[in-house]
C-alpha cells in the first residue's frame, strides 16, 4: 500500500533520500533548505539511517567533502540554496569532471543583494553550465518521486554525473501538502546499489582529479560534455520507469492543454501549478491557452522543447531570475535561441515574475495569457515585461 500523508515537502524529500539508503551526507544549513539536512541528521543521530553525517563549516567544504565520499564509492547527498550554492561554485565544476554522481537538492532562493531568503531561480541560473544534470520539481510529490530518480540517473553506468534537484524555496519547501510515499521495497527494487567502476581504494591506489595539461584538458572537457548530452536518453528511460511506478506522468518536458492552445507560457518549477488554474479559468471563458514546462533543464532537451512548443502563434517565456545586462534573461535567452535553430517562429513575449519571493497570483498569469493572445493577433513581439513590479 502506498502511504499518502500530509507532510512538508522538505521532509518528504529528506525521507526519500534516507529511503535511498544514502551513505554520506555533508551539509551546511541554509534557509530554506535547512529542514532537509536537519531531518537527515536526526535520522542518522537516532540510528535509523546508517550513514555518515558530516557537519561542515561552509558549503564550500560541504561540496568538497561530498566529492571525497563519492570518490570513495559512497552514495552521497547534500542540499543547499542561494548563497550556499554560490559558495560551492568552484567545487561544483569538479564533480562532473571527476564523474562523481553526487545528488544535491537545491531549494531555489534569491541571491543577495538586497539580502533575501525568499524564492526565485537566481541561484541556479548562475550554475546553469557547471556540467551537472539539472531537474526542476513542480511540487512536493515530485520532490519525493524524483529523489530516487536522481540517484538512479546519476549512478547509471552510462551516465555517472552529479545531479541537482531544484524545487522552489518556501513555496514548495515549506508547504505541507499530500504526498504519496513509495514503499521501501519499491525503492529497493528501483534503485540498485551504487557500484562505481573506479573509486579511491587504499588497497588499489589511484589518482583522481589530476592536472590536465594542454595535451589532455581540451579532450577531457569535450568528453565531459558528450557524457552530459548522452545522459538524456537514460533520464528519459528512468522517468518512464517512475511513471510506471507512480502512475504520474514524468516527461522531460510537460505540456498542459497544448493540443488546443494558440498561445502558451514557457515556465519552470511550481509556477506552473498556479498557471494551470489560470488555464482552467480562461477555458471557462472559451479561451484556449497552454503551458510548456521543462522538467529537465540540463542537458537542455532541445528536441522535446521544440516538439512541445508545436505550432503555437505566441510564446511567453517566463524567467524567475535576472540576467543583468544580458540581451534577455536566462530562460528567454535560451528558448529564443532554440526557436532560431528550428523552423518555428512564434511571436515571443518575455516576462520576469516572482523575484525574491514576490507573490504570483492567478490573475497575474491570466493577464499574461491575454496579452499573448493580443500579441498573436498583432504579430508583434514585446520587450521584456516585469510582472508585479511597482513603478
Amino acid at each position, binding site marked *: 500500500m502506498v502511504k499518502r500523508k500530509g507532510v512538508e515537502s522538505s521532509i518528504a524529500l529528506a525521507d526519500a533520500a534516507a529511503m535511498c539508503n544514502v551513505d554520506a551526507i555533508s551539509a551546511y544549513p541554509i*534557509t530554506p533548505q535547512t529542514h532537509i539536512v536537519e531531518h537527515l541528521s536526526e535520522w542518522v543521530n537516532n540510528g535509523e539511517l546508517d550513514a555518515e553525517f558530516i557537519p561542515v563549516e561552509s558549503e564550500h567544504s560541504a561540496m568538497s567533502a561530498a566529492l571525497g565520499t563519492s570518490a570513495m564509492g559512497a552514495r552521497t547527498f547534500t542540499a543547499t540554496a542561494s548563497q550556499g550554492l554560490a559558495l560551492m561554485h568552484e567545487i561544483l565544476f569538479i564533480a562532473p569532471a571527476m564523474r562523481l554522481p553526487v545528488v544535491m537538492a537545491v531549494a531555489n532562493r534569491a541571491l543577495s543583494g538586497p539580502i533575501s531568503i525568499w524564492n526565485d531561480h537566481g541561484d541556479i541560473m548562475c550554475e546553469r553550465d557547471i556540467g551537472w544534470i539539472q531537474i526542476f520539481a513542480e511540487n512536493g510529490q515530485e520532490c519525493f518521486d524524483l529523489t530516487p530518480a536522481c540517484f538512479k540517473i546519476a549512478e547509471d553506468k552510462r551516465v555517472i554525473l552529479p545531479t541537482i534537484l531544484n524545487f522552489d524555496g518556501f513555496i514548495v519547501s*515549506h508547504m*505541507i*501538502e499530500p504526498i504519496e510515499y513509495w514503499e521501501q521495497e519499491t525503492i529497493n527494487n528501483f534503485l540498485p546499489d551504487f557500484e562505481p567502476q573506479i573509486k579511491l581504494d587504499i588497497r588499489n591506489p589511484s589518482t583522481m582529479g589530476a592536472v590536465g595539461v594542454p595535451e589532455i584538458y581540451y579532450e577531457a572537457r569535450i568528453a565531459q560534455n558528450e557524457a552530459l548530452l548522452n545522459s538524456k536518453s537514460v533520464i528519459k528511460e528512468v522517468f518512464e520507469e517512475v511513471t510506471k511506478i507512480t502512475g504520474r506522468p514524468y516527461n522531460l518536458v510537460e505540456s498542459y492543454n497544448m493540443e488546443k492552445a494558440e498561445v502558451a507560457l514557457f515556465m519552470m518549477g511550481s509556477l506552473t501549478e*498556479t498557471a494551470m488554474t489560470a488555464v482552467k479559468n480562461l477555458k471557462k471563458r472559451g479561451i484556449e491557452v497552454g503551458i510548456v514546462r521543462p522538467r529537465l533543464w540540463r542537458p537542455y532537451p532541445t528536441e522535446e522543447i521544440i516538439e512541445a512548443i508545436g505550432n503555437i502563434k505566441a510564446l511567453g517565456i517566463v524567467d524567475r531570475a535576472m540576467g543583468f545586462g544580458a540581451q534577455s534573461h536566462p530562460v528567454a535567452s535560451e528558448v529564443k535561441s532554440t526557436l532560431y535553430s528550428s523552423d518555428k517562429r512564434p511571436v515571443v513575449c518575455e516576462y520576469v515574475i516572482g523575484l525574491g519571493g514576490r*507573490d504570483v*497570483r*492567478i490573475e497575474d498569469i491570466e493577464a499574461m495569457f491575454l496579452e499573448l493572445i493580443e500579441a498573436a493577433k498583432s504579430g508583434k513581439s514585446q520587450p521584456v515585461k516585469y510582472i508585479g513590479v511597482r513603478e
Partner: protein
Amino acid sequence: MLEFRFHGRGGQGSVTSAELLAITAVADNKFAQAFPSFGPERRGAPVQAFARIDEEQILNRSKVYTPDVVLVLDYTLTQMVNVTTGLKPDGILIVSTGNTPELVREETGWKGRLAIVDGVKIAMTHIKRPINNTVMLGALIKASGCVSMENMKEAVKERFGKIAAVNMAALTEAFETVTISEGE
C-alpha cells in the same frame, strides 16, 4: 475550496495549527496545503499562517487573500492588524477571547458569523501553559466542520507525543464550549 488564515504571535504555534489542519484534511482523503507567511521567525511578533482544503488537487501557490475562515489566537492582535481583511462576507471569524461577542464585533467591525472561545483559559486548565493553538482547532472544527475529529486526534497524537492527551482534552473542550453567533 476553503481557505484559512491564522493570526498569532511568533512562538504561539499558529503555523502548527495550520499544519495540523492540513495533515488532518489529507488523512480525511482531501487535498490540503498549509504554509507559513514565509520569512524569518520572530518570537512575539505578529505572524500569519495559511491553509487550503479542497476535494480536488489544489493548483494555486499564491498566498491566501480572501479566506473563508480567519482564526485569531491572540486577541491583542485585533488592535494591531485588521484581522478581517479579505474575509469573505459569508466566512467565519474565530477568536480566542474571554470577551463577549458584542465587544468583539464592536472592536473588529465584523458583522458575519463569529465563533468565540476563551482558548487561553482552556489551555491553562488542561495544558497548564497559555498555548492555545491546539485548543482553537477544536473551535475551528466545530465552527467549520472542515475536518474530522478522529483524524485530528491522530495528528495531535503524532505531533505532541506525551502531551497529546492534554492537548486533545483542551481541543475537545473548545469544540464543546465554543459560542457561535450568526451574522447579519
